[in-house]
């Protein structure tokens, strides 16, 4: 039906499998995003052919606001501008921008809301990492 495996030998997937070093940037959340990307791209060992750098932006927005003007839910909106560069020459091989959102409930106690917020940020990093890797697997520049 015309579908071919992305990680078939010689394809983009294979080219990125265990060859990408993810550069840590952007504080605590950046650390979480870096780990999520590393989980998907594998450990490059010492022969990283590519370096992936990311610029992360996150905003929080009040959503479900009660008649008493209390906020019952927050949306977290994340955007990442990424650049996959050739480790040796530094030439960008693929660049792009992804965005995603999720939400957390703020109804419970301050403690529970704090835990829910922290968990929501970590989930958002996984959502963004999935989108970045999906973009990289089909990046036209890499397919050549």
């Amino acid at each position, binding site marked *: 039906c015309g*579908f*071919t*495996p*992305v*990680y*078939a030998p010689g*394809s983009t*997937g294979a080219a990125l499998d*265990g060859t990408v070093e993810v*550069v*840590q940037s952007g*504080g*605590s959340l950046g*650390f979480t995003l870096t780990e999520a990307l590393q*989980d*998907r791209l*594998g*450990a490059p060992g010492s022969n990283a052919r590519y370096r992936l750098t990311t610029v992360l932006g996150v905003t929080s*927005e*009040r*959503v*479900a*606001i*009660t*008649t*008493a*003007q*209390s*906020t*019952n*839910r927050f*949306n977290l909106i994340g955007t990442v501008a990424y650049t996959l560069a050739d480790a040796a020459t530094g030439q960008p091989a693929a660049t792009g921008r992804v*965005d*995603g*959102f*999720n*939400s*957390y*409930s*703020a*109804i*419970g*106690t*301050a*403690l*529970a*809301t*704090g*835990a*829910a917020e*922290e*968990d*929501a940020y*970590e*989930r958002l*990093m*996984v959502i963004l990492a*999935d989108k970045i890797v*999906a973009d990289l697997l*089909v990046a036209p520049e890499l397919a050549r």
Partner: protein
Amino acid sequence: QDTAATAGPQEVTAIVADVVRIDGNERLVATGNVEVFSRGTRLRAQSVTYDRAADRVQIGGPIELRDADGTIVLADQAELDSELTEGILRGARLVLDGRLQVAGAEMARRQDRFNDLRQVAASSCKVCETGETPLWEIRASRVIHDQDAGQVYFYNARFRIAGVPVFYLPALRVPDGTDPRVRGFLAPSVRNTTELGTGVKLPYFIPLGDHADVTLTPYITENQSRTLEGRFRRAFVNGDILAEGAVSRDTLEPGSNRGYLFVNGSFAIPRDFTFTFNLETTSDKPYLRDYDYSDKDRLDSSVALSRVRSGERIEGALTFYNSLRADRDDDDEPTLVGDARWNRRVQAPGPGGWVDLDLIGHFHQRESTEDIVGRDMAQIRGRAGWRQRWTGPGGLRFSARAELTADLKQITDDSRFESTQAGLWPQGAVTLSWPLIRPSADGGHQLLEPVLQVAHSADTGIDTANDDSTQVALDTGNLFAFNRFPGLDRTETGTRANVALRWSIVDPKGVAIRLTGGRVYRQSGRGQFSQESGLSGAESDWLAQIDLDITDTLNFRTLALLDDDLDLSLYEARLFLRGPFGSLLTSNYIWQAADTAAELNDDVSELAASASVPVTRSWSARGELRRDFTVGRTNYSGLGVAYQNECIRVDLSVARRFRATSDVDATTTYGLSVELAGFGTQGRAATPGRCKN
């Protein structure tokens, strides 16, 4: 340009022109595109006659003089000394801050510092034909511009709008725009709210040296509410401090001093750590919302340390919570919370993959010490994990993950549970995915990826109350996570299979649809999640995340949880639409089924939207709406109109909102702010004016 050797390059005056005539007695006449440079001042004119003996320069216009500090003077004719610092200019216009034009019949320049104009008309509005009255202007009998102090002094200033005199000031001092941190009044604004009535805010800025400043803003309203707002900023070599607060006496809480104070600072400290602190306090619960200072319903004061490096994160924070929510009382809430974590990731030798080591510490305390109600908890968690990923035959992707977690938990003031408990439990997962791609002829492609994960987590061996894991959420961010409980008091156990399908269709013209669907099938531990969380029972709710992009004009994002018979338990959508003429619409909608376990007693159905439309070059309109469909009430609606041209920015806004459940009628807030361009408002880029001819 070969300058004479005797005098240094700065003290010398240079003239460049098409033709220079020298006559016998030391007079020099330069004509044609004449430019004169002297000590940083540059002058352009049609003709310049230099009389060496008198050291005077006669200049024929049109003249444009630019001082080193950016002051611009236009004139028809002038007679100055050779250093262009002393003398008279006729038909002069002083241009300040690149925009404010101070025109006078005559201008005297003195001591390389003062520009003294008489019979002045000052405005930053573009006047196309002479004699046309500008939108606003200041007439004054005399204006003195002190270039060193960066101040402009108007005497007998008459402020006129569209030619009509509006008010008179015997003396007026205004910054000339060269120094952005000049003491003085900032743009005033008028505000009207139903409770406080009409009021005026007049901010006054006071710089304290180069590294600190204070802005004090009195806010007086007709309902006898008197407020003084303040902001203090201080910058250090390795950090900065910002403090904002206000003190009020009003008729809402008669007889009592009300106020708030927010202080936060962050500092770089040795060994690459960052230290931040944050204090938030207010006199009474409704104060912040009465004066629109903040819409927070929880105040958190905290001190925190953090260091993040490649492969290592160290964080610690001590937070004190203070709830402002009317629908909660504090005593059963933990008010003091401490968290610390150390995360370390290294590449595994041998088989490859990642090794993660984590150490997590936590405690929370309640003020009361009563049994159960006053429960306090503390915990230390150590965790070691390993994960690896392979590519098998036919492009199949395998990944394996194993983790061992040890907990030491202490529960005090709760007789239902052992006070000290320990637990050690392993968990593991294997994931199989098969990403497939089908490039389409026109350069687009389809991506299809089925994913299957089987995971098992042993029982933790700890029996505890649930303080921090009451708000459970399921989205594509934790569909394949080991533990979908957000906190430490609960951990997901049992055997389950997580299934997902990712499908994306992208065409070269920039239209892309990305779908992700998933579900959790649970073989054991079916009762650990609340029914409404979507994760309970043998099969979780269906999880769907759909993104639609049409180039950069439309981005639509949505996530949803549907139960077995496809009823929604949670639906959220966000829309970004770029319309014609640069108009923008952003909107988000949320629908959530009631979840008594998570203290949500009725459904939530709420739409929020905001739009901004540039109507003409100068006029722009904006609107905002927040509608609560469950209660059938528009909690917030706002309209704004702004007129901005090269010399003025007027912003008129009206907002209607409900402040509390008990409110029958909404409160309406009107706002008006007028800002004159050219008075040190470089921050606001005024659109340059154009003449229609």
